[in-house]
């Protein structure tokens, strides 16, 4: 079995995996980082979004071996100790979640979106969230949260 080694949330992580092991399985089952959710497992819902070398990707559609040597950030890696990331705080302030299942993927996607576009318009936010599905909120408060999170990330 191949050995993979990557930096996850700033720490070195290494394990033996099968070639077919998905990145999301590696994160959840080998590293115990269960904040990254598996929703559809078919690349559609975005609950499994993490950052690989600074870019949002669906970790159910990436093999762990493809991320060998990469730097990975999961939802567990965005807060600063007890202080939530401004985007997490914005989701809480704006009621950008109900059941919370999609939230880790939404937050990871939103951070990537704002990193590439510091002041996104509502239309750009909606376009940027096309890869993330929420079955509770109707998206309205998520869009508001991303807008507020973008403003907070600038400050």
């Amino acid at each position, binding site marked *: 079995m*191949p050995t993979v080694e990557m930096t996850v949330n700033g720490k070195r992580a290494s394990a033996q995996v*099968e*070639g*077919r092991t998905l990145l999301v399985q590696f994160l959840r089952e080998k590293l115990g980082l269960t904040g990254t959710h598996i929703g559809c*497992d*078919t*690349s*559609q819902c*975005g609950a499994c*979004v993490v950052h690989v070398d600074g*870019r*949002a*990707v*669906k970790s159910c*559609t*990436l*093999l762990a*071996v*493809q991320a*060998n040597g990469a730097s990975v950030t999961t939802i567990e890696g965005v807060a600063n100790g007890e202080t939530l990331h401004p985007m997490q705080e914005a989701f809480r302030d704006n009621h950008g979640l109900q059941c919370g299942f999609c939230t880790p993927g939404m937050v990871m*996607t939103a951070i*990537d*979106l704002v990193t*590439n576009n510091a002041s996104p318009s509502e239309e750009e936010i909606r376009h*940027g969230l*096309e*890869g*993330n599905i929420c079955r509770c909120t109707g998206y309205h408060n998520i869009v508001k949260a991303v807008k507020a999170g973008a403003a907070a990330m600038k400050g």
Partner: protein
Amino acid sequence: MHDFGYHRPASVADVAGLLASKGEAKVVAGGMTLIPTLKQRLASPSDLVDLAGIAELKGVKAEGGGITIGAMTTHAEVHRSAEVQKTIPALAQLAGGIGDPQVRNRGTIGGSVANSDPAADYPAAVLGLGATIRTNKREIKADDFFKGMFETALQDGEIITAIHFPKPEKAGYSKFPNPASRYAIVGVFVARTAGGVRAAVTGAGPCAFRSKELESALGGSFTPEAAKAVKLGADGFNTDLHATAAYRAHLISVMAARAVAAAS
């Protein structure tokens, strides 16, 4: 997903060697189609040969007035490329509308073109702009490349290394996306070039194709009205749960008109 051997060679020459020595190997670029295919066990290769470690396959550069895009350049990189935005803005716009942001961060132009999905966006641009597909063995003209559903002129052991797009005078792309997948139910790429007008359609047939009817109408008058006046029969177009052949035939004229209106 069945297990497989995994290889990440550092050069194109090493890819050829691996493909020759491993019986049932498949090449993976961004993996946005292949990984879901493996998960559904619609393919079970003995080995995966990952192109991600080959630096020479990445990047956008100006060449001969047009642009050359390395096969492993992602959709997001093409979308954000200042060079592409300046030389062929329609191509940058097309890349920014593929799938969703996560797909655009992983999916590559070479993978999309080699896959020849009947509803993919890039094949319309490759055909519409009269691009040249460069492989590890030869150069193939866009007109000779797309052969059918998931079928191209690529031979065993042949991989795309780059795609060269000549600069058009004007070009535009418009698609009617499936609201769930963002694949084109119909997409039309139009280009006015020194050699005449080209119009390529994706989503409607077994693979991207040029529409002689649109090209002749737009050759006479490169206007949305001329595109809209083209009435196509439904024969040969796809019917599925998303749209009938007749609906797609109608959409071709509508998307062509929008593409001409957006052309720059």
